[in-house]
């Protein structure tokens, strides 16, 4: 299992994050580990660093983790979370500049084939470029 890049989905809404993870599992299968998080500490909409760190830890893979985010704060918090990782993990987590649902599916599809982290990120980000 741990020989593929893992996916973390970070949305302001836990429902969107969970739904996106469900779509990935249905379309790509279970060989890629997917974690999701969303919502703030008060149960409202939002993202926060501890939850993102937890999600990354849950699906940690030595091949790396690709993070897919929705709006600005999710990206800012995800980048902060990456910086707070232990140094040996920091370089193996990327925050993809891609639409959250499509990006997650594309990244997971690429990861399922055993691709390295940079190719997984590129697969997701092609969507933004195209």
């Amino acid at each position, binding site marked *: 299992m741990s020989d593929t890049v893992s996916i973390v989905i970070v949305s302001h809404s836990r429902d969107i994050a969970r739904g996106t993870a469900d779509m990935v599992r249905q379309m790509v299968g279970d060989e890629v580990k997917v974690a999701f998080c969303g919502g*703030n*500490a*008060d149960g*409202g*909409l*939002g*993202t*926060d*660093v*501890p939850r993102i760190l937890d999600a990354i830890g849950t699906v940690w893979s030595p091949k790396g983790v690709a993070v897919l985010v929705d*709006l*600005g*704060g999710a990206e*800012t*918090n995800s*980048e*902060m979370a990456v910086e*707070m990782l232990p140094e040996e993990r920091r370089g193996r987590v990327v925050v993809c500049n891609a639409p959250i649902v499509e990006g997650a599916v594309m990244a997971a599809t690429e990861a399922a084939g055993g691709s390295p982290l940079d190719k997984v990120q590129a697969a997701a980000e092609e969507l933004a470029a195209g």
Partner: protein
Amino acid sequence: MFLKPEVLKALITAAAAQVIASAPELTALDQAIGDGDHGANMKRGFEAILAKLDAIAAEAPGEAVKAMGKTLVMTVGGASGPLYGSLFMAMGEAMLRGKRLPEDLAEIFASGVEAVSARGRSRAGEKTMLDVLVPVLEILRAEAGRPDLAQRVRAVASAAAERTAPMLATKGRAAFLGARSIGHIDPGARSSSVLLHAICTSLEALP
């Protein structure tokens, strides 16, 4: 002698009390152009700092300021957690690299402001907290050592927060509102001004 534990404790307590007291106002500002959680988020962060005040204040100044930043990152949430967290963490790191208070105040503050700018990929003029932090940095640089510096910083911070009202937001959630963001003070600019006010006021009250 500038940042003895009891001084640091007094500064942090004053800053936290003021942010917590301003939560309703920050929330009201954020309801106008954001998602309405800035007051609650900042309150949660500064309550967390108060909860470990003794441990934080017992550290060397650089470590203490960095610990404040880390606490904010882990508790505030939203976009302001990483932004305020980066501000304090970078200032703390500057102090750990040997910058000292009060003589290097402007340089230390500059490290914090740069970190906010990098984290938010933003700069002054985009209706954010940087519209308060950057003018304050300019005053710190230009007027370092003046006896009325704290008073000047307060005046500059207040005026700078007010000046965000006519600005068009291009960063953060307010950017979605486009022209409708005009006419409202930016909540992050306001919370920066609140913090700076509290710190300056308690510095002025030092014996």
